[in-house]
């Protein structure tokens, strides 16, 4: 069943691939895509300093490339596989927490319609983030199911793909310590070695340093603007799923206190996210914890109640409203809808952009009211009955 769900999610991803249009910048490679394409076609010592530190997935993309596909098609083919793997491990995490299959369908459909977990890569295929997210999610799944050997191995792959995989590593190590199984933490040593080796091999002038990251905190000098943008993307990064979670902060907090290693994972990603301008492109790596949270929320509040159907509908509704999955993309929409912060912080935001995002914030407020109202009305009905 999980395989079927992953295939269905991949099908939705492919639908977005057909309906979203394709990026034209850099002859279809995009901006970072040039670096990844060079890594694949010319060698692992090519590309920019940053893309060189993420060698695994461009290396794997050589397989479809060697079969005769061109650069973009090779990345597209790999993204379809990554989407399948990602949705499969999401289904497995949900299954681990005992979520009913119909709610699994809702969650996977929700993620397959989101910008961060699907549409971005349908429009801008020459990236490795979807693959890295799939590996991080897989590592997280094996960690929470206490299969430390496999988790350590997947962490090795994930860390060779994207630096955010460090969160999965911390999560695994923390969990083994918390459970008093500290020898099992040794399984994660190879991934630490790989992380150090990759960074050592690729570090050069121009690579990001901790001081660069701290300097990036300058965005917060416009606290209202940046905090608003950050809050918006935290609430909407996974569409209705994240909206549902942010309206229950206290419950989320209590869950994370019970599972502190997941809090570690979350804090690591959030910590890195606040130091970058791309916001949701970093926040997307919180997905495994978000899935675990939604699974627990389902078990605690939705399963077998009359809330299940309206909340599922509201989640999909919020996803459609905030992610606009079937919108045909172009460069103008890409920056206006997905990265408005570039114009806002660049000081070139038009009054129309400000008005548009003002409307979006109102829409988000309404969505939050929707979720709260559904929960309250259901509670009222139950108390009356």
């Amino acid at each position, binding site marked *: 069943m999980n395989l079927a769900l992953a295939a269905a999610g991949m099908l939705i991803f492919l639908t977005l691939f057909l309906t979203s249009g394709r990026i034209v910048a850099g002859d279809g490679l995009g901006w970072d895509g040039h670096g990844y394409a060079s890594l694949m076609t010319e060698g692992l010592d090519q590309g920019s300093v940053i893309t060189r530190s993420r060698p695994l997935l461009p290396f794997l993309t050589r397989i479809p490339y060697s079969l005769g596909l061109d650069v973009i098609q090779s990345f597209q083919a790999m993204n379809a596989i990554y989407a399948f793997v990602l949705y499969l491990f999401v289904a497995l995490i949900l299954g681990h927490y005992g979520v009913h299959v119909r709610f699994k369908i809702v969650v996977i459909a929700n993620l397959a319609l989101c910008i961060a977990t699907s549409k971005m890569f349908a429009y801008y295929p020459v990236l490795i983030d979807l693959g890295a997210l799939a590996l991080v999610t897989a590592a997280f799944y094996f960690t929470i199911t206490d299969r430390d050997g496999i988790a350590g191995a997947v962490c090795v792959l994930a860390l060779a793909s994207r630096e955010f995989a460090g969160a999965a590593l911390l999560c695994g190590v923390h969990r083994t310590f918390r459970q008093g199984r500290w020898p099992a933490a040794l399984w994660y040593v190879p991934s630490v070695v790989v992380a150090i080796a990759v960074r050592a091999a690729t570090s050069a002038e121009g690579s990001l340093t901790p001081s660069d990251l701290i300097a990036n905190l300058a965005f917060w000098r416009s606290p209202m603007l940046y905090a608003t943008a950050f809050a918006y993307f935290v609430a909407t990064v996974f569409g209705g799923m994240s909206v549902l979670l942010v309206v229950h902060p206290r419950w989320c907090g209590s869950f994370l206190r019970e599972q502190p290693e997941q809090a570690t994972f979350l804090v690591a990603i959030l910590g890195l996210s606040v130091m970058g301008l791309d916001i949701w492109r970093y926040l997307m790596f919180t997905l495994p914890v978000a899935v675990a949270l939604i699974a627990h929320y389902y078990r605690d509040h939705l399963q077998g109640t009359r809330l299940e159907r*309206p909340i599922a509908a509201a989640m999909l509704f919020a996803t459609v409203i905030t992610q606009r999955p079937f919108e045909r993309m172009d460069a103008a929409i890409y920056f206006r809808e997905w990265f408005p912060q570039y114009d806002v912080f660049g000081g070139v935001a038009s009054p*129309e952009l400000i008005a548009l995002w003002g409307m979006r914030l109102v*829409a*988000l407020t309404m*969505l939050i*009211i*929707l979720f709260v*109202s*559904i929960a309250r009305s259901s509670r009222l009905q139950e108390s009356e009955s």
Partner: protein
Amino acid sequence: MVQRLQRYVSSWGLDVRDLVLIAALAIVAILPVSHDIERASKPGPFARVAMSWEIVNHRALDERTLPLWNPYQFGGRPHLANPEMLSLYPPHMLLRFLPLPLFVAVSFALHAWLAAAGTYLVARMLRVSRSAALAASAAILFGRLFISFEVIAYSLDVYRLAWLPLIAACALRSAERPTWLPRPELVVVVTVGLIASALNAAYLLATVLASYVFAAMWQSPAGSWSRHVVVQPVILACLSVGLSAVQIVPAVRFWSTVQRANAVIPDVSPRTLQDGGSTQQHPEIMDALRSLGGRGRVLSTCDRAIDGSDVVALGVPGVGGYGGVFLADYARFITLVRGPQEPIRAVFQGIPEAASGPARADLLSLLGVEYLVACAPPNPQKWALVKESRGVGVYRSLVPSPRAFWTCAPVETGRQDIEYRLRESSYDSHFVLQSHTIIHVRWPEGISDADRARAESELHLAPHRDIGDRTWQYNLLDRSPENVVAILAHPLVEDTQGIDRSTHVLKVFASPTRTFEESRSEWLLGIEPCDAPVPATVLMQDRTDGGMIVEVNAPRDGVVFFSETYYLDRRAWVDGKRIPRMKVDLAFTAVRVPAGTHRIELRYDTRALWAGAALSAITLLVWLLSERRVRVASAG
């Protein structure tokens, strides 16, 4: 009646309070109408494109005809057959009596309300509270539809998205109906939504399927129940396609004919201020063009003053435009007009060098251009100033090109051959192709454009390419020894290449003849010697029904050439008898005529439209009968 209405409303799980709230949503939706009217009166580049399409629909209504043809862009192109023009979109057909700015504003408000009301219905059907349903509706209003005019005006999203919540509500309701026939409301909204989506069914399919899957997941499947949940969407698809056949059949016919001709090229976005396009209209220039009466074609080489969308608003025909060039050959021809320096490009964005550069005047005349809007003064030997404002001028051609004229019969050949010959040779005054004879001329330092243009005109030199250092390549139109001597003796000519200065003999040769392995499916004018062209008298032109009537006195057997873009479905009648028309010079229409006086008529073929309408009517009949049968059966 009231009781029946009450029963119907309560069957949706609604009561009076819900109706009041839905009405209140309408009030919120119309709040921005006055703002939108203001914006629609001064639209930006994106809004102007969408509005230019609707102008054709409005104008057809004024002409009491169908909007079959857009005579204002790209030398004319099919209109109704292109579903993006929304000519047959029912809400717009009902609103079309309104003036355009009000029409646009009311349409946006209507669709915002439809989306919000649909969302409210879905929420109530899922048994959530009124406040939650209201919050969901407000999220729709603020999230997508209740946003700035310019952002949504160009996209069809506002129309295609507006129906989705209502479709979801009807689909959820229909899934509860234990019959194979979907509920009538669902059939109606999906049909209208399909037309609103310009027949792009991706959103509709996703919404209908998701709604049925959602209904199936949360309801206990029982014997026949699960069957109808599968059958209903299939029947729904058939009914919706059948009912919207009136739009689908012409669209399929249109796309199949242009696809067959390998003639579709991608859409072109309007240019914005950032990439040098116009963001606001140039009122003085617009007024000047409007005052010309819309008789001659307009070519704008100055996008910042006026572009292809503006000419539609003015009611003047143009050779440019935005929103997709359907006939790639037209774009290819335009590339030839641009001159040899221009690369082949898949889009048409005007002819920048037409004013004074190497644009091909002979080919420009085939486009029927009479007025030029230019940022820099064009060759005064060819263009006379009509109006100048803030550095932008409107110029009238001193050698007006007739929109239709008699000439000798073309020769059948292939596309590559046509393109090669048009590139390597030029038409003379008799519309006979003469191979290029390219010479170089160096002008004195500091020569003005006007002086150079005057000398070019005197010496019969057609600019071919500016190769820098004051030196130009020219196609020598008059190769007589007298003209060669005149070139060498001209006081402004510093130096030449291609002429032996001692013997006054041309040292250049005509382009070599090439042969191409290709099927001979098209026609080329001017291969054989011919008399001077005879302009036709235009009795009717630039109509939204695609009609054009000319009279011509043909000195002998030949063709009447029309500066009208060739489309398969624009057919020709000579003296009331339908005859085949020909595709000449890559992109144009010509009709064979014998010697004598003739009346030639071009009409847009409406058979696909009526076939579609008949199919829609049959589907409607079958559906109504089936619905009656289902109701009788369920009542029994």
